[in-house]
């Protein structure tokens, strides 16, 4: 724990809070996040409801906690999907080159030309707006970025003599890729995965805000933000708290990503 920069500390604290909230939201919330209570419509923050209630009298804190769990799982699975698929394609094309590489990369570049959110929107229209649809759509939308980065890394790695040394030792291509190329891609991948976690969280919120995310009444930060919008003049907390959650989580993840990058940079290693 030496040389822990304040940024790293703040980042870890914010991400830690998110994780704690997500796990708590999955297990227990102060009130039922879906429980209606029309007597307490749009009530401000109070001792009973710390962050107030929404237009149906549902507890905002409970909904935020439950939403954190949903958002966290969606982001995590999306990143895992995109990184796994992107790494596989990136390593294969970068290692073997040839015409397959050319075709895949042309297609990849075409996908990269679309903004991720637009691509996800199109895909969502096909697969349907639900939790798994979002994971699939966002996962596919972010795969090309991973392919680009992994392939670039592989291209520089395969020129290094230790890859040739592996071939001289009689190792198969699959072994060389798995044992020598993949571990050397871990550092950039970790950094990419952390920042991507933030992008996906934001994209998922944006999709939910647009009404294409997880369908109501299930809470996510995005659809809470969206449903708070019409009441912004009467009940400002409805939009502020989910917005604050999104911003702080993004900040935390970016700070942690920077710290990870410094840690994993080979030049910084002892």
């Amino acid at each position, binding site marked *: 724990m030496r040389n822990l920069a304040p940024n790293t500390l703040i980042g870890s604290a914010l991400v830690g809070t998110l994780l704690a909230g997500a796990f708590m939201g999955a297990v227990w919330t102060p009130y039922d996040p879906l429980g209606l209570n029309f007597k307490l419509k749009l009530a401000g923050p109070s001792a009973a409801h710390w962050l107030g209630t929404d237009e149906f009298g549902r507890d905002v804190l409970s909904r935020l906690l439950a939403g954190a769990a949903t958002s966290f799982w969606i982001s995590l699975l999306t990143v895992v999907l995109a990184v796994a698929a992107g790494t596989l394609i990136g390593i294969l094309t970068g290692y073997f080159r040839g015409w397959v590489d050319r075709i895949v990369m042309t297609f990849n570049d075409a996908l990269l030309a679309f903004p991720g959110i637009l691509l996800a929107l199109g895909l969502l229209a096909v697969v349907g707006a639900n939790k798994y649809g979002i994971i699939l759509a966002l996962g596919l939308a972010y795969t090309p970025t991973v392919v680009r980065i992994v392939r670039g890394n592989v291209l520089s790695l395969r020129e290094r*003599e230790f890859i*040739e*040394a592996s071939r*001289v030792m*009689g190792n198969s291509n699959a072994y060389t890729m798995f044992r020598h190329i993949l571990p050397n891609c871990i550092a950039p991948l970790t950094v990419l995965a952390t920042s991507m976690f933030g992008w996906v969280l934001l994209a998922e919120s944006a999709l939910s805000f647009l009404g294409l995310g997880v369908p109501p009444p299930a809470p996510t930060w995005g659809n809470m933000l969206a449903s708070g919008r019409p009441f912004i003049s009467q009940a400002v907390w409805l939009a502020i708290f989910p917005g604050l959650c999104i911003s702080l989580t993004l900040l935390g993840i970016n700070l942690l990503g920077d710290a990870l990058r410094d840690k994993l940079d080979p030049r910084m290693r002892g």
Partner: protein
Amino acid sequence: MQEKSPLLDVRGLSLEVARTGIKILKNISFDVKAGEIVGIVGESGSGKSMAARAIIALNPSAVQRTTGTISFEGRDIGTMHKRDLQALRGARVGMVFQEPMTSLNPSMRIGRQLEEGLRLHRRLTSRERHRLIVEMLARVGLNDPQTALAAMPHHFSGGMRQRIMLAAVMLLKPALLIADEPTTALDAVVQRDVLELMVDLTRENNTAVLMISHDLAMVAKYSDRVVVMSQGEIVEQGDTRNLLRAPQHPYTRKLLSALPHRVPARAVEVSPIARINVDGLVVDFAARRSLLRKGQPKRALNGVSLSVMPGEVVAVVGGSGSGKTTLGRTIAGLIKPTDGKILFNGKPIQISATDYVDYRLNCQMVFQDPYSSLDPRMTIGSLVGEALRHSTELTNKEKNMRVADVLDEVGLSPEFASRFPHQLSGGQRQRVAIARAVVRRPQFVIADEPVSALDVTVRAQVLKLFAELQRKHGFSCLFISHDLAVVEQIADRVIVMNHGVIVEEGRRDAIFDSPQHEYTRKLLQAIPALFGTENGGVELGWRFDDAGRKTVNGRP
């Protein structure tokens, strides 16, 4: 020359890293007189580059001067104003760096780059500048200086770039030229040409040269005086000839004894079946295709035939671009030959055949660059052990023992097994690379410039180790190198290559003492021949006379 007052006078200079207090230079004093060539010799980490950089106050800001003065043309550099210092750099003191590939700005035309200095330091019209630049480019040996002006640095080879760099520096006719390992990255013939040019050019302009090098032979040949540095201190300095002939300090002696020297030739049995037999090998590299034009393939090897007997060390020498590396990589199976046959123990090797596995396991390679040939994320133990992965006759326990044995053989203690490559020095890494190549007891090892990336003394140690292992395990070896001095020490037989063909082949002594082909002679003449004296020193001499006859102790 003696009565001139020094151009550069360094007195009691000490440098240290401000933050950690580590001393880089300890109280060093030397001088350079006008028009003189002074060599600074030492291993990496001896502080020789730092000393040179301090002269024009180019040392990194973290490194601070604690004591001493540097005076140039009678003025103290330390008290000089920043603007005066800038006027001094380039105009009065020029510098040529080691790496010709990066010392020119890759996105700037040659003409513009040469003009930069003149614009900054001289008041001339553009017509005069143009005339000076063209004259200088012609002087450094560019065939078509007018066209070169509009060319980009990547159009030129390393040697040509170093000439251009030299032209850029000498255009301003500086009083002192600092050359930091100016030819280390070049092959022998080009190295000689560039150095001769540097010496001629500086003589013409009465420019003094401070030549920093780890190559004693080069310094012996070209410098008037030499300064020997070790660990931030000057251990010895004086007239080059006298100092090298009778070195006083043990460190200088150690450096001199590390120079490669010939050992008596061994008898290698000629067996009926060669370990490796290469017949009419041709390798073409596909040319880069543009949209409309299908480029001509480049022929890297053009009908190469050779054989290596069991237990024999055959060296392949040649300049860069001669095809020697391609030859090694093709035999190792890393490049597919366009035509020709490779026989291993009399049987042809083919990528698909079952014999290929046998060949694959019996032919190993040591690569040139110890920084890129080891996977940075694996420990030394697993790196060496990986080579045994395909071995079926050994149990895991035996494999671990074999790895430990081999690490011991290459002089690394057992605790190295758990370290990572970045924790090792270059020499140690190359020992690991050698361990990895020999751990499976291969019958044939291809070594591609295995010691060229190493320092003089480390090079001597690694070379000695390699020769010992070869003798002990008796593997055949194809030793690829541009360094003739190293080849002279290790090879039984020598093959000289140029432009993808073998120009001469013969026993080592025959090639080195009475070379027949013109190119071989050129190669050999490019490296200064040093002959031992009685006091443990060395002296410059000739390997053979003009007619190609062997000399006795360097005297025709």
